[in-house]
């Protein structure tokens, strides 16, 4: 009779003797094909300072990325105490921090739809920010409101992806997201934290919209499992939410749950960075 070893352990997920679980060696063991054969890109990291006291600078971020051989990351400001009305200061700061590492750190602009966002958008676009980050809870707006739609429209017209927070503290958003995605089929809309407040309905409601992507940072593994089972792997993106989470945990969860959910090995590189690079039109 066949012995179901997979119920008990996966040899790939048990660290070999002396191997630390927060090491690249362990990560490589867990996600062998993905991390060794294709670049990893992180779709969700922060630089600067948050109102909650968390900080991260480029040096710290690059050290974390290097530890796990992550090629690069999308970077945007925290909910910075110096945000003012338009995030001008933190946007400028993170761009300057990313500039010496332009091939690895890709800055998004953070905008506040309540403020004079148009001028800041133009400034950031001209400077070279490659996407937009929106946070409906922190900046207190509804995801599908008329207030924010001009930002979506402008980003879509310019080919910039928009990463919008759909995690902690958000109400159910899938119908609003569907309305936005239907109205702007050329918008590349990345759902930060994969809309976990609205699972599993979000998967059903948003399935018809190929321009909606699910970013997986700090998502509970039952939601991650369902995303990986039900959403085409071309629409799922690895993210960590650094510095709140680490590359270790985020990459391990993605690798282990993708294997359990039956994502074919040849699709793993899409999850770990391929999809993000395609959305950004970046050749790694």
């Amino acid at each position, binding site marked *: *009779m*066949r*012995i*179901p*070893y*997979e*119920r*008990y*352990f*996966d*040899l790939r997920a*048990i*660290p*070999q*003797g002396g191997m630390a*679980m927060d090491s690249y060696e362990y990560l490589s063991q867990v996600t062998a094909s993905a991390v060794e054969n294709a670049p990893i890109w992180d779709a969700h990291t922060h630089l600067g300072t*948050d*109102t*909650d*006291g*968390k900080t991260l600078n480029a040096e710290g971020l690059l050290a974390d990325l290097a530890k796990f051989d992550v090629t690069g990351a999308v970077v945007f400001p925290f909910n910075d105490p110096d945000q003012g009305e338009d995030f001008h200061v933190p946007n400028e700061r993170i761009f300057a921090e990313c500039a010496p590492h332009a091939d690895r750190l890709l800055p998004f602009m953070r905008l506040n739809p309540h403020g004079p966002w148009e001028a800041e958008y133009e400034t950031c676009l001209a400077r070279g920010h490659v996407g937009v980050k929106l946070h409906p809870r922190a900046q207190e707006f509804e995801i599908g409101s008329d207030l924010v739609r001009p930002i979506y429209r402008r980003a879509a017209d310019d080919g910039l992806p928009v990463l919008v927070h759909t995690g*902690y503290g958000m109400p159910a958003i899938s119908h609003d997201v569907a309305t936005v995605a239907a109205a702007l089929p050329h918008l590349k809309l990345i759902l930060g934290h994969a809309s976990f407040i609205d699972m599993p309905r979000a998967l059903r409601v948003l399935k018809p919209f190929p321009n909606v992507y699910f970013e997986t940072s*700090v998502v*509970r*593994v*039952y939601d991650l*499992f369902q995303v990986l089972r039900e959403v085409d792997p071309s629409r799922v993106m690895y993210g960590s*939410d650094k*510095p*709140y*989470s680490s590359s270790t*945990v985020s990459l391990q*969860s993605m690798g*282990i*749950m993708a294997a*359990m959910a039956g994502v074919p090995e040849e699709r793993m590189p899409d999850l770990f960075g391929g999809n993000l690079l395609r959305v950004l039109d970046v050749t790694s």
Partner: protein
Amino acid sequence: MRTTVKGTDVHDVCREVVERGLHPEQVDVDLGDGRLLPLVLDDPAHFTLYVRLYSRALAARNLFLSGNIRRTLWEIGAALIAADEPPCFLEGVYLAEIRFALANAEEALRTGQTSAKHHGPYASMTIAENLCLMRLFRRQLHPTPPG
């Protein structure tokens, strides 16, 4: 009939179990220091261990969000106690990871990250929940085939 395998390296022991075609539930591990541990837990014990830890981490996160830091620390402390003594050889690896996430949350709270606006403790407790759930998923999603 149980089989005893000698070793302290989890990966090596598990590989030997696979190579010898042994059933994990019928293996004990001799650690060479007088301890003999079952390689794995049976289903009820495995479920009990991880549901206990998961519920502690979940309760801690919810108490944190409600602002009750004293009770949050109490739940984390209880989870750390429950994760302290590995009841079998294999789970020692995963319990160490869970303890690390819980200790991160505890440290953050003790250093003043106590408001619901602080995302760090929330993330650490979510990570602890996820580590428990991944162990439950592994056992639950691969049921023994009939016969």
